């Protein structure tokens, strides 16, 4: 496959644009997506290509334009609703959970909702508590939704394309710190990434490090550092939280017999807790050591840089913990 080097934001933009070329019923709506080219420039050039009928600047009314998107999806359209941040999408969580997720079931399968909700999630840089929160677990908790967390540019493109084509409501959790990162992206209009499949980042035999979104990057970094200490770590990027790729997790644990789950979210009823439950239910016999989790500090995220950094799991911390477990 031919690869091109692209940033995450450009890959995302290309994924959306390709789907809009393919299907005239796809439109993009959100704050600053059109004339401003996206608050984080993720829709650069799209207004120019598709015009104001399909790339639409909304007022700051998340509840309203989310409901509007869901209503249009009921009619069979395929909206992409962008949030400037999932922190602001809390206002629309009613429409996402009560309308988008549940109507298909409540209507006995008569009313579908093929919609994509996307935007930045989790921590940024020094933006304080109201703008720093990972909502993955909150939405993944809800049947009727799919939730994905692309980390690489290739996954950003492949998953946004799958999300648009999916008949279910799909939430794409991005991160501001990922937008500028570059990576290889396969060329071609029809390269999809399947929703529900984890990404094996690195093979190893001593311990499995499991992460998603930013924490997958920390795991990868930690694995490189661990290699120098003689620990051969396998790294799994969950990539899709709901549906969850349980078999990828179980397969890895059966090989390494040890695991650390890392998250840039809160531990209480969080994603790591869910992964630990899966391991305990489906791979308990394979374990040589208790599974550990490393989560965001259990505090509202502070503004000051040094305080903020202290609340995140750092690669060093993962290394220390892994060495301890493997000893």
């Amino acid at each position, binding site marked *: 496959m031919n690869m091109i080097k692209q940033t995450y934001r450009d890959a995302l933009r290309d994924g959306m644009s390709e789907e809009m070329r393919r299907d005239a019923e796809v439109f993009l709506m959100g704050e600053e997506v059109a*004339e*401003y080219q996206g608050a984080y420039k993720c829709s650069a050039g799209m207004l120019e290509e598709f015009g104001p009928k399909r790339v639409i600047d909304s007022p700051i009314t998340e*509840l309203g334009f989310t409901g509007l998107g869901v209503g249009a999806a009921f009619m069979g359209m395929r909206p992409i609703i962008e949030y400037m941040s999932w*922190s602001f999408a809390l*206002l629309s969580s009613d429409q996402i959970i009560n309308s988008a997720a549940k109507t298909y079931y409540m209507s006995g399968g008569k009313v579908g909702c093929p919609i994509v909700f996307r935007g930045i999630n989790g921590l940024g840089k*020094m933006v304080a508590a109201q703008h720093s929160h990972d909502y993955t677990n909150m939405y993944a908790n809800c049947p009727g939704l799919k939730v994905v967390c692309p980390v690489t540019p290739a996954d950003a493109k492949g998953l946004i394309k799958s999300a648009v084509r999916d008949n279910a409501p799909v939430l794409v959790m991005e991160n501001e710190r990922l937008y500028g990162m570059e990576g290889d992206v396969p060329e071609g209009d029809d390269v999809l990434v399947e929703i529900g499949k984890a990404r094996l980042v690195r093979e190893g035999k001593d311990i499995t490090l499991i992460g998603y979104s930013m924490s997958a990057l920390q795991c990868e970094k930690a694995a490189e550092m661990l290699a120098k200490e003689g620990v051969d770590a396998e790294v799994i990027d969950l990539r899709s939280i709901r549906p969850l790729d349980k078999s990828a997790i179980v397969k890895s644990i059966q090989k390494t017999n040890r695991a650390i789950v890392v998250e840039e979210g809160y531990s209480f009823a969080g994603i790591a807790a869910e992964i630990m439950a899966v391991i305990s239910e489906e791979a308990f016999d394979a374990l040589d050591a208790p599974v550990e989790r490393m989560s965001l500090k259990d*505090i509202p995220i*502070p*503004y*000051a840089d040094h305080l903020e950094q202290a609340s995140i799991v750092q690669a060093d911390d993962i290394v220390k913990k892994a060495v301890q477990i493997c000893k």
Partner: protein
Amino acid sequence: MAVKSAAKKKFNLVKSLHNQFTKEDLLAQYESMIQLRRFQEKVGSLYQQGYMGGFCHLYIGQEAVITGAKAASKEGDDFITTYRCHAHAAMSGISMEEILGELMGRSTGISKGKGGSMHMFDPDKHFWGGHGIVGGNVPLATGMAFAAKYREEDRVTLCFFGDGAADSGAMFESFNMAALWKLPVLYIIENNHFSMGTAKERHAAGEFYKRGEPFGIPGKKVDGMDFFAVYEAISEACEYIRAGNGPMLLEMDTYRYKGHSMSDPAKYRKREDVDGIKTKRDPIMQLGNVLMSNYKVKEEDLKALDKKAKEAVAKAVEIALDAPKADMAELYTDIIQSNGEK
């Protein structure tokens, strides 16, 4: 702020207000405004030098709104605003050192380094933040007014928010409740003509000041670049509210000179538009002109106040920079207020 009692009466013509203030009162207002301006400029340059991070929203151009509001309100009235809060915090009596300390993540910061640019509070000074979610502070203000009425206290809540926030459902829901229960709240839309990069014409249908009409909330459009106009409108509105009539709505026609936040180059508007407002409607220039024409103040006197403001800002920066970084132990404090704590 002490204002001649005559100035508290109703005026139909803003111009007639010009001679109702003592020279000293007005000079004090001028000093507040120029200090806010110099302070915000300094914050902008410190940000660019890397002394702070995250989102940082400056108030340059909008100074007459908060200055006029403070002068027209009474001691004990409550103020609440959005993330664009430095000037509101300063006018509530939070020191520049405490604001800068917060911006630079120091132990002396008003929120101990945990809130940052968008989240500053001081209830003792009747300043209730500093809120990051657009529209979110409007219901909060409504609740504060609810408490004041419930307790039969003579307090008006002044709630500031932007033209973008004025589209939010939260605002309309608040209007309904405040009108229904005649709550003592003054809603002040600071219409700076942009909701981030989206011009008013592209995000809002109709007129902001009329948005309370269906609920019976009187509204008025005010020249928010004119200290006297702001002063008069807010004085009247507070009087109306204090008389038990329920909420009022004021739309302040104002303008922000800088980008939405430090990361916004503001390419969505023409330089000439900004320059035109700066040269014709600047709030500090306008007040300066009144001082010179009606109060025999000399240009040198105004320049001296500017110099004084710059010195005060410089001093505050020095103090803020001297303070230690926010204490690591602060990570785990203030999460849950324990029972028995006041």
